[in-house]
């Protein structure tokens, strides 16, 4: 990706052939440069998928081991918020893809608008995620040993929101008071939330990185740096953003829709 930056210092090696403005010194042609960037970003996305893979394995393994726990704990996630976030991200995929098209056609203004929209979606996503997270911290549906605190609490101390959730459906479709659950079972709930927080947290970090990337692209787009012969960076940034979306598309059903 780094080679596509505009300050490619052409010249200095005097081979006589004229070097296009956006061509870095070590490439022969613009096609070679663009092709390298493309292969580079795809390879990078592959490493990203593998980066998440361990967590997906953890999810599969522990869900296979404790299916009831996962079903039960999943009820504590807010499906509506998750669904809204899915739509937000899907929409942002559209805008970023549109932006790539704008860059190719040299439509500077539309490019800026689309990048801005994508950024807004990313911000919205993080906002909603923040609401979800703070809700969980409030309720104490947390990872590992920390999950216990809510279930250990005296009923008199339980807040209103927590009371709302102090009952849930168990795997057999019966309504169970959380406090009546088997202690081992209660503890395993923490495992679900560990997987939940790791997956969504890592994804959230990727959204943040994406936002930095989009801001950088936006700043450059405002300087009209992109055009029909120079849209690599937008294209590659867009691909990264699609991957971030794609991962969420998997996370949503796996985490929110299992009860």
């Amino acid at each position, binding site marked *: 990706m*780094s*080679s596509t930056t505009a300050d490619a210092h052409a010249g200095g090696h005097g081979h006589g052939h004229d070097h296009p403005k956006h061509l870095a010194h070590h490439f022969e042609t613009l096609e070679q440069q663009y092709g390298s960037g493309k292969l580079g970003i795809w390879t990078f996305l592959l*490493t990203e998928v593998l980066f998440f893979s361990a967590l997906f394995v953890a999810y599969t393994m522990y869900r296979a081991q404790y299916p009831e726990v996962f079903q039960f704990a999943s009820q504590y996630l807010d499906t509506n918020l998750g669904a809204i976030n899915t739509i937000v991200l899907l929409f942002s995929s559209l805008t970023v893809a549109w932006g790539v098209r704008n860059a190719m056609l040299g439509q500077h203004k539309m490019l800026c608008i689309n990048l801005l929209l994508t950024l807004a979606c990313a911000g919205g996503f993080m906002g909603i995620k923040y609401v979800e997270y703070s809700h969980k911290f409030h309720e104490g549906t947390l*990872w590992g040993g920390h999950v216990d605190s809510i279930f250990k609490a005296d009923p008199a101390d339980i807040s209103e929101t927590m009371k709302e959730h102090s009952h849930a459906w168990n795997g057999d479709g019966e309504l169970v008071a959380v406090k009546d659950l088997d202690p081992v079972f209660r503890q395993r709930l923490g495992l679900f939330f560990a997987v939940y927080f790791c997956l969504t947290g890592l994804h959230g970090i990727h959204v943040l990185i994406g936002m930095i990337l989009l801001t950088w692209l936006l700043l450059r787009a405002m300087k009209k740096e992109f055009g029909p012969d120079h849209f690599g960076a937008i294209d590659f940034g867009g691909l990264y953003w699609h991957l971030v979306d794609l991962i969420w598309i998997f996370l949503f059903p796996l985490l929110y829709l299992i009860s």
Partner: protein
Amino acid sequence: MTPSTNTLERTNYLNATKGFMSWFWTIDHKRLGLMYMWSVVAAFILGGFFALKIRMTLMPGAVDFASQTAEQMNAYNNAFTVHGAVMIFLVIIPSIPAALGNFVVPMMLGAKDVAFPRLNRFSYHLWIIGALLFTGTFFIGNLDTGWTFYPPYSTGSTDNTVILATLGAFVLGFSSIFTGLNFIVTIHKMRPANMTWFRMPLFLWAIYATAVIQILATPVIGISLLLLLVEKTMSIGIFNPELGGDPVFFQHLFWFYSHPAVYIMILPGMGVMSELFATFSRKPIFGYKSIAMSSLAIALFSFIVWGHHMFLSGQSQLMSVIFSALTFSVAVPSAIKVFNWIATMYKGSVAFTTPMIYGMSIIWLFGIGGLTGLFLATLGTDVQFHDTYFVVAHFHYVMVGSALFGFIGGIYYWWPKMYGRMADNFWTKLAWFMSFIGFNLTFLPQFVGGSRGMPRRYAGYGTEAGYDSFNYWSTIGAMILAVGLTMALGTLIYSMFRGRKAPSNPWGGVTLEWQTPTPPPEHNFEIDAFPVGDPYDMNLCEYNGEEEGFLPVNPRADDPCVADVAIDPVYFEPESENAPA
């Protein structure tokens, strides 16, 4: 007399710009390669210091077994942990790909640089950050988990140095990923038009296969270490059995990376070997395609054998049987390479230069290292050998005896290209001899001790255990090895200043990096397009006495490298017996 193709007095990549920042902030792959090389050497000295500390502790009589204090034992645990972690993450993994690879790969391709020069610089800076994080552990505590960082110990009662060390390994992982990514794209996209895949020098095939492992395996260790970090700092429970998690899960993730990682270490060494054997046998490499393909085969197989590190971890017996069988299959492509190298020497005119001697000794060392791997891959025998010095000896034969010797051999091979000077023939060979003897003396006894049950990672054994003689010879051997390696380093540093000036092609290699002046200009080549043919057609160059090196048989009119020599009537005598037909 200075060879005409030596550019030390002219402008070259070493003297084109000056000052600290012109190196530290460079995007020139050659300078980055050199900086990697010296950084790796520095890390090696650090790791070597701890190795000697281990050996000194284990010298019979050095520490009284019965009255050892807790501090002494902690210091020992620290020594083997830092030694292992530094040697693996900071030395062997970046050694050949990042140091030699950076220097050589673009030149072998006739290119001006790697595909992403800035990313390349970023990789190097990540390496530095990783190294700083590792050294940071010295100041805040006693890192003592072993290089494997297994939970529950690493996430439990040990101190917080683990946090720094895993962060360091995490950062180094990304350094390695970006290097691999860069090479993959470079090899795909920057080859000259007429260099087809099967006209690539085998070093490129090896680097390519290595890069595939780097990008596929390293992200997994990245996430595993991250999980270990959150486990340690926030007890999330994924690896904690008390919370329903599974510590063996970490072992799976760890070895899913770390077994392929052993091929990140050895494959580039094998690539260097292929170059050495072809050039110094003055014969086309035997079995080009099978060597190229076996690199890829090794890369692929390496992903499906990790369970052989976990035969005794409680994994199911069926899994163990499958992993054992798969592990045997890795030996096949490795052996193919060895046979091909030997066949290359057969009826060649072998030149016993220093790099070649390293190459030839690796056949012996890798033979032992690889074959003992099969002992370990066998379920029944591994029950006896697991966690003993047998394993320690096995992996030192492959990592030091093969990967490190390959690195040193590669440095000697490309050294003239790097600094424009030749290292001394006699002293480099003496250094090799000392290292070779010292190395074998250190590790052969460990096979014997290990097979008799001597466990690894113990701070002392006591005379009654009966391992004293093994430890004694190991320590003596380690000292000889240290002297040998120090000498090898000394020959290099001496030659940098005093060595004979090198011609552009001292060894007679026909790959493209030998077709540029020595040291190369900033953008590698002074001429534009190359005729790329068979990378191992040794008839393309011939020895020239005045030059004390090799010159192309058909020099191009515009080749500045031989322009001065072209006037030489002797060289162009049409009747000369080597004249092109």
